[in-house]
């Protein structure tokens, strides 16, 4: 019974953790939109703009990835089960 409660709550927690995907989604969309604007204004700078954008997007992604890691840990390597 205890195990079932812990497992269920871990699944809910994993789902809640992935709400953090909202932030990087908005941020990356904004970054890509701005990059497209600047490429449209100055098409010859496409290479530089795209390269810088990818690094920025990767940086913005880290918070989403952290939440993904927490969700994965809760689902596949649950540390709470061992505490019962």
């Amino acid at each position: 019974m205890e195990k079932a409660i812990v497992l269920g709550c871990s699944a809910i927690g994993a789902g809640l953790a992935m709400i953090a995907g909202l932030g990087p989604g908005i941020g990356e969309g904004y970054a890509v939109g701005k990059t497209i604007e600047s490429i449209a204004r100055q098409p010859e700078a496409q290479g530089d703009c795209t390269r810088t954008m990818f690094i920025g997007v990767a940086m913005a992604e880290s918070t989403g990835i952290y939440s993904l890691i927490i969700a994965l840990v809760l689902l596949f390597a649950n540390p709470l089960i061992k505490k019962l």
Partner: protein
Amino acid sequence: MDGPKVVFTIPIFGGLDITETVVIGWFVILIVLLVSLYLTSGLRKIPNTKHQILAEMLVGFVNNTVKKAMGERFMYFAPYIAALLLYSLLGSLVSLLGLRSVTADLNTTVAMALVTFVLITYFKIKTNGMWGYIKSFGSPIVLLAPLNIISEIATPLSMSFRMFGNIAGGSIITSLLYMALGAASKALHLSFTFGSFRLDAVQLFTPAVLSIYFDLFTGCIQAYIFAMLTMVNVSMAADKS
């Protein structure tokens, strides 16, 4: 999804487990070696073979990237960056062959990020001196030292987690899709059994679209971003603070 399977155990230090990741990593290293040997065989001054033109394209790409991101003074980093790019790229792309991605294991990415961390620390000490390096933790005031230490550790941590999270998340989503499609083809009575071999008709072709994104696109982008962040961080560490 389970972790990487243990292939065999070396009986020292109470049993060293050699996992799937390590064995596939050896194959990736072997493939990189063979490809490099093939591409650089029979070099001529004026290239007229296809493989030499391809090799010059690859080397030129890496040289250009290093020159743009780090400047002329770090050109000796190009071989390391090329090795990093090739290993992480092929390590991610082996999932196209149905093998487990080498980079879908936190151990691989942490090892690669630790090398970057050592390089960053080395260049910081080299430019500012040992005392300057220690003093940089107390800037702007000594009270912020814990935060500075955390931000120092966060660089390799975020680099390794980013690569691992992207590749592992992609493979989890793909395997979930396979399971869902298997269940769907059972429900639609499109699942055929030939002896021990089972064919789920819905599983054909559909995952290929997702595979292009999760295996090809993510693998290439993450390899590039990892190499790029290494270059940016190292060249930033070499600037005087």
